[in-house]
């Protein structure tokens, strides 16, 4: 706020009110370089702006047209390898002003649907695009739309999944705060294609700014006749309601989110029936991650074929990733599918800072996999990551350096999943506690060599036998650390020693 005020003051002081406009935007993704300021034309991007440098930037750049080089963003490579489709407007416009979204081409896709495309045309275009769900599982979006469209029963519902329960991930949050209308437009188009008249946007209470932004955006869309009855004078009716979760990782799972919206504990249930045929109040329901939804307007505008050529053929488009941990340029990025992990970690992320060395990258959140340097050549797509033992998840990339102990890391994630397991099915409820105990034993210098096999066996069993995606993926961090960092486990077990000194071999009080 102080920076904004300083700009306003400086512009006034130098009499530049007619020459420039000060706008507020959402986050462009460079979180650790903040506060940031963009000066157009020319995409000049200033970092770590203070009230003092604000004054100088106005004086030099705005008044004399000479960019104040010493304050410019110092990592141009952060942007150069990115491809920004979903984040097209992030950091470039005021998210709280629907007119800015419209002036950047927003809601033209909706108008195109309403004036020149049948619902089937829209579904076909999405099908042709090859778009796959960005919430983790990577299911074909067009296929899902066909299922919901053909499912008998009414009314039909649409759920925008913005639960983002993965710790270490903030892509959906940033999208909602920087470009809420892209999500909303995607939902209205889905409602037209599937003849669904009611939508819920489900987000977490931990995201107050996103909630505020979405609330205002929905209100604005309503007042322009884009939500409500007879949308833009056509026969389309669509009502959109914001629903808040209350801090449960499992609530993002597609059957658990149904229970949560119905006002109950977020407990998953067996599938089939899938939500597409029996979802909210047992009616056909489309559940889609909000990043998936934000792609929809682009696909409608440019055609499915255009989209299918971005990224790699079996996995077209882009993906947003939250890049965090021991990395020089943490932040939110969007890259074409098929880019390698190495390019993401080293070229965009700038590698590991403070003179330390890279050890592993955790891909896919708390139930993702820890991949070592030897796997960094992997292209980012659903199949390659799964083969290596990780998952796409909701797009979390956490970099670990040589200070992180792999046994401790595995233990951290298992503790998280034990906390978050809903307790409905036995493999997940009991199995994960068992795994946690074995890991604790190893971390306290009391492990035996057999424990490694035990971890693998129980882990595989939990994956196979669990009811929902939580249990089916929770053992991944353990399985991948055992697979790629076995020597660290052996050091704990045989030498009673933690190579990084993180585990206190038996003396530290458990907190």
């Amino acid at each position, binding site marked *: 706020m102080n920076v904004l005020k300083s700009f306003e003051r400086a512009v006034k002081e130098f009499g530049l009110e007619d020459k420039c406009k000060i706008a507020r935007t959402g986050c462009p993704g460079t979180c650790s370089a903040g506060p940031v300021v963009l000066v157009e034309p020319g995409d000049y991007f200033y970092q770590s702006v203070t009230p003092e440098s604000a004054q100088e930037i106005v004086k030099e750049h705005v008044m004399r047209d000479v960019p104040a080089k010493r304050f410019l963003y110092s990592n141009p490579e952060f942007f150069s390898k990115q491809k920004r489709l979903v984040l097209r407007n992030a950091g470039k416009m005021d998210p709280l002003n629907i007119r800015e979204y419209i002036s950047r081409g927003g809601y033209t896709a909706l108008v195109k649907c309403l004036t020149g495309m049948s619902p089937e045309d829209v579904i076909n275009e999405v099908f042709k695009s090859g778009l796959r769900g960005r919430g983790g599982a990577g299911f074909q979006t067009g296929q899902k739309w066909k299922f919901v469209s053909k499912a008998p029963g009414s009314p039909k519902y649409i759920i925008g999944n913005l639960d983002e329960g993965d710790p270490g991930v903030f892509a959906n949050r940033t999208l909602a705060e920087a470009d809420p209308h892209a999500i909303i437009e995607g939902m209205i188009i889905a409602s037209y294609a599937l003849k669904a008249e009611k939508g819920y946007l489900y987000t977490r209470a*931990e995201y107050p700014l996103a909630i505020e932004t979405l609330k205002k955006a929905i209100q604005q869309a309503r007042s322009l006749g884009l939500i409500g009855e007879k949308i833009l004078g056509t026969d389309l009716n669509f009502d959109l309601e914001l629903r808040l*979760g209350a801090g449960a990782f499992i609530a993002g799972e597609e059957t658990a989110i149904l229970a949560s919206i119905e006002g109950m504990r977020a407990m998953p249930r067996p599938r089939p029936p899938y939500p597409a045929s029996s979802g909210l109040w047992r009616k056909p329901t489309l559940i889609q991650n909000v990043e998936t939804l934000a792609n929809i307007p682009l696909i409608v505008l440019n055609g499915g074929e255009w989209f299918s050529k971005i990224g790699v053929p079996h996995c077209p488009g882009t993906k947003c990733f939250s890049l*965090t*941990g021991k990395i020089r340029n943490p932040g939110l990025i969007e890259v074409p599918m098929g880019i390698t992990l190495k390019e993401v970690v080293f070229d965009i992320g700038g590698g590991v800072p403070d003179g330390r060395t890279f050890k592993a990258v*955790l891909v896919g959140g708390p139930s993702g996999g820890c991949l070592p340097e030897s796997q960094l050549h992997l292209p980012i797509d659903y199949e390659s990551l799964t083969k290596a033992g990780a998952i796409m998840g909701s797009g979390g990339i956490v970099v670990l350096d040589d200070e992180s102990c792999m046994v401790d890391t595995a233990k951290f994630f298992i503790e998280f999943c034990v906390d978050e397991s809903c307790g409905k099915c036995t493999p997940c409820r009991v199995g994960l506690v068992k795994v946690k105990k074995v890991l604790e034993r190893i971390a306290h210098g009391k492990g035996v060599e057999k424990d490694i096999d035990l971890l693998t066996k129980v882990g595989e069993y939990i994956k196979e036998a669990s009811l929902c995606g939580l249990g089916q993926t929770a053992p991944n961090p353990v399985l991948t650390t055992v697979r790629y960092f076995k020597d660290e486990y052996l050091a704990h077990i045989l030498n009673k020693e933690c190579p990084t000194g993180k585990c206190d071999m038996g003396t530290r009080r458990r907190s």
Partner: protein
Amino acid sequence: MEKDQTSESPHAASDVLIAEKLMVKLEKIMEEHNYQRSALLEVLQKAQEIFGYLDRKVLLLIAEKLHVAPSQVYGAATFYNFFRLRKPGEHIITICMGTACYVKGADKILSTLEQELGIERGKSTPDGRISLFITRCIGACAMAPNVIIDDVVIGKATKEGVIERIRKSAGGEN
């Protein structure tokens, strides 16, 4: 559930009055939702906003008005991490123990604070001044580690910085 702590203050009479007013406010919110049972989570959230936490009386009232079994209301209130069933301290310190914050040393900040305050995570100091909670990611991971002191997020937090802030906002003790 814990015994209701509010009723034991010296200003009991005026407290009761305030409590009644707040109950009326809660009723109104339920009315806005047409007493639909699917609004349970919304109502619990609002109730926590109004009272700061969810005590037995509040949970029972919600159960009655929404026609939901008390066990289900209690079930939902304990299932979701966001709900508090005990009165929190005057100042609330929340440490993010999400992945990004953990990798950046949030655990060390947590154990330092547990020692400094003499309480474990999830508890309040005996004088009711400070509560220590953990959360799993507030979505500000690029600024990890994050600590929230009374709704203010402190990014790139250090042990020293956090203790200093607590001293400032919660008074000189500890």
